[in-house]
């Protein structure tokens, strides 16, 4: 007797499956390729800028080197984005909860559209509004802040006469990132399984307690993801900051004074038109650093989301 041949039935290949798997593979690799191309460009063009002889770089002030040039910009970028996130996140969660769990259905729908509309406003418009409307309108309250809360270093002053300060820029950024955080939070809050909401209510939870015990923990990874998208936008936002802020390369925590730090992206936008030669490479190098910062911020967010994976409700 011959040994029975092991027959491995080949899975039937259907054209639809093949097309789909190929297009998914192409899309996936395309993202990686684009990212690699961007990173490659930044490194190729930026690294010479990093190690250029400070004497030959005209955008450095006297005796400055690359590190001294870029550190205040990194500070300004992180500071503006963090302030914007601190202001926008609680508001966004509040609006999202109102839409998903409190507002009557018709009002909720209308509100949702308006929030989405806010996301469609170009950043130049936000910049114009911030520089020409908000700055002037908010300046008197800066005076008040200095008089009453001046003992907090953040509001030490002296107050800027134009109102075009770090706080104004951060408010504009907060308004800009509000829609994306709200939209994503609203979606995840709406996806809370009714099963668990009913479990909480049946235990005698009030509506707010139900939200606290079920909706918020369930939506947490989504809210963090939304916040990171918002933060990414705030870190990279160029026009609005460049238009509102007349900053310089300083590290200042005062939010309402006339001396303000600038962000990496705004600095590139402001200096690029007049940059030449090695200066361009220096600016691209700052872009490379922004790229790295965004990467680190996103990794931290991933880490936070994954840390309590067992309890995420996804299993």
């Amino acid at each position, binding site marked *: 007797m011959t040994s029975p041949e092991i027959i491995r039935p080949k899975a039937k290949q259907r054209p639809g499956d093949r097309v789909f798997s190929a297009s998914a593979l192409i899309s996936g690799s395309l993202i990686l390729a684009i990212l690699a191309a961007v990173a490659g460009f930044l490194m190729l063009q930026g690294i010479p800028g990093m190690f250029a002889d400070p004497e030959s770089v005209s955008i450095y002030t006297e005796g400055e080197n690359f590190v001294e040039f870029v550190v205040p910009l990194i500070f300004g970028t992180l500071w503006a984005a963090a302030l914007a996130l601190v202001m926008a996140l609680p508001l966004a969660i509040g609006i999202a909860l109102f839409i998903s769990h409190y507002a009557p259905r018709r009002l909720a729908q209308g509100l949702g559209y308006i929030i989405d509309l806010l996301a469609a406003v170009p950043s130049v418009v936000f910049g114009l509004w911030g520089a020409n409307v908000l700055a002037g309108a908010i300046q008197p309250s800066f005076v008040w802040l200095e008089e009453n809360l001046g003992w907090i270093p953040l509001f030490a002053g002296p107050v800027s006469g134009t109102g075009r300060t770090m706080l104004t820029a951060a408010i504009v950024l907060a308004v800009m990132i509000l829609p994306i955080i709200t939209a994503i939070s609203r979606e995840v809050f709406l996806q809370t399984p009714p*099963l668990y909401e009913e479990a909480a209510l*049946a235990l*005698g*939870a*009030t509506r707010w307690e139900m939200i606290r015990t*079920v909706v918020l923990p369930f939506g947490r990874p989504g809210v963090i993801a939304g916040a990171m998208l918002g933060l990414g936008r705030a870190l990279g936002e160029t026009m609005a900051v460049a238009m509102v802020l007349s900053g310089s390369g300083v590290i200042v925590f005062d939010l309402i004074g006339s001396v303000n730090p600038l962000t990496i992206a705004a600095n590139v936008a402001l200096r690029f038109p007049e940059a030449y030669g090695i200066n361009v490479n220096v600016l691209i190098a700052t872009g490379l650093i922004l790229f790295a910062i965004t990467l680190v911020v996103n990794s931290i967010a991933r880490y936070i989301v994954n840390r309590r994976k*067992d*309890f*995420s*409700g996804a299993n």
Partner: protein
Amino acid sequence: MSKRIEVNDLDVYYSKFKAVEGVNLVIEPRSVTALIGPSGCGKSTFIRTLNRMHEVIPGAWVDGEVLVDGNNLYGPGVDPVRVRRQVGMVFQRPNPFPTMSIRDNVLAGVKLNNQRISKSDADELVEKSLKGANLWNEVKDRLDRPGNGLSGGQQQRLCIARAIAVEPEVILMDEPCSALDPISTLAIEDLIEELKQDYTIVIVTHNMQQASRVSDRTAFFNIAGTGKPGKLIEVDDTATIFSNPSIKDTEDYVSGKFG
């Protein structure tokens, strides 16, 4: 702590649609009452009116009285949140909070409404509730693990532990075993037998053997046709319903002629 429930002329609506009509029913303390009937006859809708969970659905409302020891649940000024603390509920699909540990699941109801509990009291309550739900021995070494890592039957018993931790007077169970295997079902049925000593229990079930095994009284609901409201046809001692019901429809249903 168990209480008597009296339902007087209760109509239950979803917006304009009348889902259940004219229910009159008395449920004695420390007894198990089973609600049986074909799908869509309104038994799940009815059981949710006993702790005001019905009105959680937008547009849902109720006309009539539900008296728990003489107090109308639907009286003016009655807070549904307080009602639900008195009348606990276990759902068809096990629903321990996935974002909480086993321990926190048991304590979830106790920590609501700004109540504080010391750690030692909490430990004691967790042990007592889990023992009460026949789950302690299976989970005592992993109280800090997520509740949905347990099997379906264990999850359902965790939900029962969570419900009894707040010391309600009545426990409602809406098809608690329909998502479980026979062994887990048996565990829950044994548990119902024990819980009866302390609580008034109302259970909705599709399984007539289960009704005859666990309940003292059985109420049969039926529906005349789609779009018509469900009605309570007959309620009597379980033995009578299954051996000698007074209404023909009941006999047809329990003997398997329809449904």
